[in-house]
């Protein structure tokens, strides 16, 4: 089967993640959508690796996973500290830098 289908699936998942970031206002759900986008990119990298017949794509996907794990740790810590001061996880409520 042609690996192009995986690329289409990856594009669809990435777009759904973008849609979630644009539409949702709960910071945790926005964060999950970012994770979905990272996962879609990983699928594309693994597929590229298969298309080109080298393992570099898989190593890159591995590094993306490491960076994503670090990002989740820091991002969730930010969400927790914002929640502690504003008592809300909505991205609309963190607006002190707005004016």
């Amino acid at each position, binding site marked *: 089967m042609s690996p192009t289908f995986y690329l289409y699936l990856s594009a669809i998942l990435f777009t759904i993640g973008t849609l979630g970031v644009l539409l949702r206002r709960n910071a945790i759900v926005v964060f999950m959508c970012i994770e979905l986008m990272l996962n879609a990119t990983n699928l594309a990298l693994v597929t590229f690796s298969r298309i080109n017949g080298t393992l570099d794509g898989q*190593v890159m996907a591995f590094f993306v996973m490491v960076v994503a794990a670090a990002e989740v740790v820091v991002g969730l810590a930010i969400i927790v500290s914002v929640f502690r001061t504003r008592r809300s996880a909505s991205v609309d409520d963190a607006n002190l830098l707005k004016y």
Partner: protein
Amino acid sequence: MPTAILASGLNASGPETAVFWILAPIAVIFALGMVFSRHTVHAALMLGGVMLILAVFYAAQDAPFLAFVQVIVYTGAVMMLFLFVLMLVGVDTKDSLVETLRGQRFAGVVAAIGFLLLLFTGIVNAGIHGSKGLHAVNFADDQPARGVENAGGNVYQIAKLLFDRYVFAFEATSALLITAALGAMVLAHRQRHTPKLTQRELMQQRFKFGTHPAPLPGPGVYARHNAVDTPALLPDGSPSPLSVSLSVELVSQKHGRAPRPAELGSSAAAHHPASGKGQSE
């Protein structure tokens, strides 16, 4: 080598096509459900489903190592972290359906569709025909480490790349992980504005202000009722409201199980001798 079996079993064209066409729509449905579900916990579970399906796709594409790492790191660690923070922040926080910016939803959907078309055009224009496949690379036995288990194979080849060509990136990763751990500690650290109370001060406060200095009574344990929402009975047979936690009472009211002081008061006489007998036996 189970990974090789896993990879080769899925890699024959027929089964892989079937797996793809069964799981890909499920992945898309889960992803859409994640975006549109109002319950954050449902969204988290659906994201976990998408991640598991992606792990299957990695296994089908000659990447068994990444498939296992995906399950361990994403569905294991990252999703647990998400659920943990969800519980910390409060499960009941639902999104309001009010648009703060007028037309934001419509504009977002239009932008997403445009972006999807852009990506699809790019993939079509790339003109990818067939693939070289990774089987030859994964099982290229150049200088196999003799006596080492799983010499050759995907994990071995990735390790060779990781510790040879990408070793500086790998070292930079360790710096990144340490920084992230430090950052999380700094961000989640709460500064104390008041000095910590000693046990003596706590005790004094309790006796100065508290109307009930002793610990609260525990919930009732009887022969037929043994639950935290069953109030304890006072010596005169009346139920003690102090013995049931307020949040437990709220939950049982929400689920239609009204707290039963009245019910218990009437049946207390019937229960009491029975429970006494049960305990003595």
